């Protein structure tokens, strides 16, 4: 009897028992749900399996980056949606980071009014739902833009009106390909040069002309390459014919509205991260680097930014993943992203809810895991190394 009691009261036995009970309970619940689902699907006459992916989609998409057309299969529709999601996410990330840094630094400005305006922006943006901004930009701003005939012209080559943004398109991409190869090579050269300069400095103590070489390799060569490519390519510049523009590439209003909403909203959050990051560097660090004889620029580059980055990386990762997830808000204004194309249109046509939902969620989970893995690697690289 006492042996049995000892057995029941053994913590290890209890731990195993509780966990087994939880697992069995969850498994039973899952089996119950799956049985109900399969019964319901049989009753409703819904097929299962992934065969539907090879059926012709027949869904027209107003904005595609891939070669998708209406006669392609549903799998191509899926990829077209993924491409649109990634497009708006990447562009929004870049613009929101730039705007966020600007506002975050403005919040620390020595000029009070600059601080106040940046602060007001942050408080305004952060306390309003993102969906509000999406609808506001789409129905409030873009819809109120003039008709194509009275378009707002951007330097005479791009035109903004209530049917979207018409931008010029290069006739051939070859020159740009060469330009990007040149830029990549000069970046590589710059990296090799920095390595060489650091080695030499460690060995002999002599400085290399880092700034001048850097300006040439990172600024002059890319600018020249892009300028050459721009001038050497024939551009298809949109022209007003009748009631609309011909030529060029039309960025649909849904994209413009979603991008504007994502950028203005996310910038408010990034600004707070930037401010927090910079403020987290103790003032003594800056005074100490001054005492060591570093110039203000050097202090910023060698002392403040590396330490601020360490604090900023994890929350920035979160914000970047939020932008990816928030790009699905486009579904509310029918921007053809993966949620609205696949979870919306394709699901309506096929009715295969479980497969389609699983695939859509997998897109976000896979990208999210990849980004987290990369940021964890980066974070580990820049983390403080202690003894």
């Amino acid at each position: 009897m006492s042996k049995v009691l000892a057995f029941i009261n053994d913590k290890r036995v209890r731990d195993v028992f509780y966990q087994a009970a939880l697992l069995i309970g969850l498994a039973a619940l899952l089996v119950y749900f799956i049985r109900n689902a399969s019964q319901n699907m049989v009753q409703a006459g819904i097929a299962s399996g992934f065969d539907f992916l090879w059926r012709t989609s027949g869904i027209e998409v107003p904005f595609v980056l891939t070669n998708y057309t209406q006669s392609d299969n549903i799998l191509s529709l899926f990829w077209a949606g993924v491409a649109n999601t990634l497009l708006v996410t990447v562009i929004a990330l870049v613009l929101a980071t730039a705007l966020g840094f600007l506002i975050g630094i403005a919040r620390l400005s020595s000029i009070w009014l600059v601080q106040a305006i940046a602060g007001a922006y942050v408080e305004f943006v952060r306390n309003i739902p993102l969906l509000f901004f999406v609808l506001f930009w789409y129905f409030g701003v873009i819809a109120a833009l003039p008709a194509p005939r009275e378009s707002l012209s951007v330097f005479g080559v791009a035109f903004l009106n209530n049917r979207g943004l018409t931008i010029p398109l290069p006739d051939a991409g070859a020159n740009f390909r060469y330009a990007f190869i040149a830029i990549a090579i000069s970046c590589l050269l710059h990296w090799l040069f920095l390595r060489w300069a650091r080695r030499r400095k460690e060995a002999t103590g002599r400085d290399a002309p880092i700034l001048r070489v850097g300006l040439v390799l990172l600024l002059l060569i890319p600018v020249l390459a892009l300028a050459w490519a721009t001038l050497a390519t024939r551009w298809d510049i949109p022209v007003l014919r009748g009631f609309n523009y011909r030529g060029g590439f039309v960025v649909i209003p849904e994209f413009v509205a979603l991008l504007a909403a994502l950028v203005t909203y996310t910038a408010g959050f990034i600004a707070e991260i930037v401010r927090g990051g910079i403020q987290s560097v103790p003032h003594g660090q800056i005074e100490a680097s001054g005492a060591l004889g570093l110039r203000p620029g050097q202090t910023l580059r060698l002392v403040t930014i590396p330490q601020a980055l360490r604090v900023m990386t994890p929350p920035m990762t979160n914000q970047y993943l939020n932008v990816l997830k928030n790009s699905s808000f486009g579904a509310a204004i029918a921007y053809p992203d993966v949620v609205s194309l696949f979870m919306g249109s394709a699901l309506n046509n096929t009715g295969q809810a479980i497969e389609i939902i699983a695939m859509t969620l997998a897109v976000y989970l896979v990208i999210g895991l990849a980004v987290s893995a990369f940021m964890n690697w980066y974070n580990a690289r820049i983390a403080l190394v202690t003894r």
Partner: protein
Amino acid sequence: MRAAATLRTSWRERLFGTPTITVVTLLLAAAIAWVAVPIIRWTLIDATWSGQTRNDCTGTGACWVFVKARFSQFMYGFYPAEERWRPNLAGLAFALSGAAIVFAPQRLKLRLGLAALVILPPLGVWLLAGGFGLRAIETREWGGLMLTVFISIYASLIAIPLGILLALGRQSELKIIKLISVLFIEFWRGVPIIAVIFLASLLLPLIMPSGIGVDRLARAVIGLGFCIAAYMAEAVRGGLQALPKGQREAATALGLSYWKATWFIILPQALRISLPAITNEFIALVKNTTLVLVVSILDLLGIAQASLADPNWVGMNMEAYVFSGGLYWLICFALSRWSKSLERQR
């Protein structure tokens, strides 16, 4: 840069300290005036305040007649006018018990809170939905600010307890419980909330036995609740991790079981630490309730959006957006100020 941000200086110095600052201040002031004057003219000076119909909107500014005419819809959606005392009463009950808990003596707080937690949620649903002596009102007729508040409260009633359990699970020494909690949290945090709302509205009826329907609104609340629970779990985890390990060890040494130690020692301290983070997640939840729009449930933003289609009130986009956006801003700003003051008390 930093000194100016922290030191208290006179307003004259802050605005006109040096010639550069003076120039920038003046330029910015001009820019503000250039933006703000038309906005103020539109919202206040040139606005129309009195009237009944679209024809009274003769001014060049905003026409607040529209908001006045539709005010009850913005607040209650299509909830029958003669039954609106019910949501009012439910809101009053929630607000009064909240106040009672805040101002009650320390030793009664917990009991009052638990009692409110047991009594209020079913009472609220009964008052709003009806049945048992009250006229039944379908959730299709609910809407407006009332629905925003309803979804926020009921989704957090799912999210906060579940989030606390998940956070405890994530800290657990039991490998399988920890694994399940981590998987659950990371899954819901990794997918867009809009997709979760779609998912809930499509899958919940599918996995229930045939014949048992799940109400449209309940689906959205459950979906939101699960998703927010994962975020809440991370907020609570912060508080749990901030507690020294000795707290649980000491409790165990005194002979308290896991749940007793958690209930009497760990949670009271951890929740106090993570209250600001929990409030921030609640603000995010309030903002995310707007997403129920995609399954055609009309909360405050949804009602504003739907009102744009009214043929009797063409061209009232800005008025609808300014009013609904302003309300959201007021609610979220007040909550975030409260969360900041909690942080300072600590």
